[in-house]
């Protein structure tokens, strides 16, 4: 269905643009002087609306991200210290920007978790490619990938922002959960 919006027929003085320009300048001036006033007097600045202050002094104040926020993906360990990832490569498959590269490997026999048989020899997430979609977390059958709430990752080189297994595990840390699927293997 098409909705037809009637365009208002402008009067001659409205067609001149000047009233509109003047109106615009009034609005911008009001905000300008108010902010300047607040700034000089050292008050918190920013427009106050019914929901509170809408401007935030970013580096000092930070946005409290909601629980559902999708930040950097990381690998976690279970309470026994086992790397939960079994290198099934589903995240590598599902990753839309192909940021994940996994090199699987059989777990060497002498290690305590050798019954799981498989783990990632290398696990890389290219944070320059990552789009924070969270599909890797969603798809992981082992609940080994979790997204942090961190959203500002900076680095001085491209290599630095390709997170390898050690870095991902360090960021992810240990996760308290109750799934011991592989414990009795």
């Amino acid at each position, binding site marked *: 269905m098409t909705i037809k919006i009637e365009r208002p027929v402008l009067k001659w003085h409205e067609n001149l643009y000047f009233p509109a320009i003047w109106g615009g300048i009034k609005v911008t001036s009001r905000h300008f002087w108010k902010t300047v006033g607040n700034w000089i007097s050292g008050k918190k600045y920013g427009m106050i609306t019914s929901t509170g202050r809408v401007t935030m002094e970013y580096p000092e104040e930070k946005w409290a991200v909601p629980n559902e926020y999708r930040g950097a993906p990381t690998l976690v360990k279970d309470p026994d210290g086992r790397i939960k990832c*079994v*290198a*099934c*490569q*589903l995240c*590598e*498959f599902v990753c839309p920007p192909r940021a994940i590269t996994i090199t*699987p*490997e*059989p777990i060497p026999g002498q290690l305590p978790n050798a*019954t*799981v*048989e*498989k783990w990632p020899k290398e696990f890389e997430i290219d944070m320059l490619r990552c789009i924070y979609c969270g599909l890797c977390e969603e798809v992981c*059958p*082992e609940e080994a990938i979790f997204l942090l709430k961190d959203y500002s990752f900076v680095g001085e080189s491209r290599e630095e922002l390709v997170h390898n297994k050690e870095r991902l595990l360090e960021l992810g840390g240990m996760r308290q959960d109750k799934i011991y*699927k592989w414990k009795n*293997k």
Partner: protein
Amino acid sequence: MIADAKSTSTPMVNLTINDRPLSVPQGTNLIEAAAKLGIHVPHYCYHPKLTVVGNCRMCLIEMGTPQIEPDKKSVLKPDGPPEITWMPRPQIACATLVSEGMAVRTHSKMVEECRKGVMEFLLINHPLDCPICDQAGECRLQEYSVDYGTGGSRFVERKVKRPKKVELGPRVTLDDERCILCSRCVRFCQEVAKDDVLGFTDRGGHTTLGCYPGKKLENNYSLNTVDICPVGALTSSDFRFQMRVWFLKEARSVCTSCATGCNITVGSREGVVYRYTPRQNDAVNSTWMCDAGRLNYAWINDPRRLTRPLKNGQSAEWSDALPDARHLLREAGMKGQLAIVASGRASTEELFLVRQMAALFPAAAVDIVGRTGGHDQILVSADKNPNTSGAKLLGLATGKLAEIKKGIESGRIKTLFVQGENLEKAGFEAGLLAKLDALVVLDILPSPTTQMATWVLPGAAHVEKNGTFINGRGRLQRFLPSFSVKGHAHEDWYILKELLPEAEHTQYHSFHSVFEAMVRETPALAGVAWEGVGDQGTPLDLKL
């Protein structure tokens, strides 16, 4: 396929499957009959190339026969078709043969209920380690679980533990917890490989697959059991944990390990070959291939692969390599000092271009390097070159290799062109090759021969290019590329046509133009078209 072969002699039987009429030869089972209508009847233990045992119970269907009155006439429904007497209980489709007037329901409510029940039983002790299982992605258990499985399990007891990671043989690893006891592998070893080593021990939920005491699954066809295993119980030790199958790009190709020319599927990802699997071709290899051929792919991934032209071992540019090599060959050819060693591993098209080069200089001696080895009565041929027949057809297998050797020794031959062969293995020692003025080698891996070469021209592996082989029985078979040529290397046809003089090579602008020229100029190939060769190859009438 089987049915078609028999159709001339075997009487046809009429039946209906899901109310759709169908006519198939007598002796066809219901799985095959339904497949003709495009209906898939789920099954695990049934395999068209093995005997029917009917132990998985997955292919249950509902079946009925026409009601017969005492006077042997069918009872008809008011609207025409015969009245059917349905069997009260489901039947297994694999072991039920068609009969006249039979009616079948493959997806009725009862059938679906039965399949759900079977699936629930199969999954009771299944370990659910799909994330680490190599079969995931091509696993019948996964597929049918999606169709007929229930989300949860009603089984509250402990799952039965069975041996995991058992090495049945040098190339096959067994995870017994995943085994659904379909016995395909047992039957394969008995019937096809003729090496009866596998069997079941213990009872009930504890039944375990194993080898007979003192034996191992180590015959040359053992990896076929991995292919036919419908679940992840048998896995290839070579492919184990290397790559998930859904990443693999599959290309239709031909095995290069012997003259049989087994049809294969090459699984590769991002320019790395991970496995070969047999591709069905009943005229060549049925659905099998030997372990030796299957595992003969690592050389493609070799990090030492030649990716740039080399001049006396130093990296060089194609723009220098091709004109210079062309010049060397031409000069020697004109003086009658040129010899060519072609390869039975090269495609027919490449050999055709080599023959064209040889034809320019009639004095030049040319031959291929022969390879022979053991053979068996199943698939392995004694001739280890995949394309000896192609070389013979083009007149390149002349048996003059010894003459070439002598020619070099006597100094009559001063320039040698070698196509993808390590001459040291053919008895050409380094000292002999050192006598040459110029040695031009087209190869993909460094060898003692390439080390001696004036020019090394890097070519492509068979998984990187189009081509055809003619197998030992004279069957022309295509192979298609999986990925493009590595680095700065070129496809061989391009290099070979560039080595021909200008006037000759301008006619070849693509691989297909080479193929067409070869067909045009070879009487035995008359009427063959690239598309017509198809995935199954085409038999040639060769008088070799």
